């Protein structure tokens, strides 16, 4: 599933600007997110994989192209709902964030829950940032748990995301 380094170099050289901007955006958000949630606790180790984020970005653009090719050529630009949905899909799939809590940690139950669901929570939060609006609290949690616990096929995952995220993007 990962993108070979040779391909990365090739793609970045030719189409670097947009890819770089999206990559930086996710990295910046992920770093701020991890630091705010976990940085104060020395018993928690946080890891951010730039390789995985790069894979998220490239696969996102491939998705956008395939989507346009197959379904939606009339539309000039991709809606923010689809941008959020496709990005969240790959964030959940590649899981670029990791949090390890030491056994002797005094972390609260809420912190432990957030650590266990870090990629799902980040994916939903990132979608919110792209859409520029917050999901209702109940929907936020439902999306996190759905991402975590349900086994989606690619099509199902997209449909669920489009249903939730796309709906809120247009309303």
């Amino acid at each position, binding site marked *: 599933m990962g993108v070979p380094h040779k391909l990365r170099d090739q793609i970045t050289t030719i189409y670097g600007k947009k890819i770089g901007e999206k990559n*930086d955006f996710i990295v910046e*958000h992920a770093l701020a997110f991890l630091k705010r949630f976990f940085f104060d606790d020395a018993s928690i180790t946080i890891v951010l994989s730039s390789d995985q984020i790069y894979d998220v970005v490239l696969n996102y*653009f491939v998705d956008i192209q395939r989507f*346009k090719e197959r379904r939606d050529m009339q539309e*000039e630009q991709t809606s923010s709902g689809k941008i959020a949905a496709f990005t969240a899909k790959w964030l959940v799939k590649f899981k670029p964030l990791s949090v390890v809590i030491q056994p002797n940690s005094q972390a609260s139950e809420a912190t432990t829950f957030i650590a266990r669901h870090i990629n799902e929570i980040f994916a939903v939060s990132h979608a919110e940032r792209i859409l520029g609006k917050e999901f209702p609290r109940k929907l936020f949690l439902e999306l996190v748990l759905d991402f975590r616990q349900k086994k989606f096929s690619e099509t199902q995952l997209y449909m669920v995301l489009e249903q939730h995220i796309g709906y809120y993007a247009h309303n």
Partner: protein
Amino acid sequence: MPLYTDLPTTDAERQKMLNRALTDRTRCVAIGNQFDNFDYSTAKNGINDFVEASFQRITSIITETMESFDGSATQATRSDHNNLR
């Protein structure tokens, strides 16, 4: 029994297959690029404020949920206990 496969057997064939995959992938990314006019640079600005607000809200959602799980669990246990009696 004969085996038919398109797996590359020589270095030249392997290279050819890799090049084809690279070209296809690169083309997809290039075209996908054109359809995305989201302003990532602007969205990146103010990300710390956004994360701060998210932190408060997400922590509150999770804490609230865990408390409600605890509440339901306690209630269920009491109910089971009463039924057993």
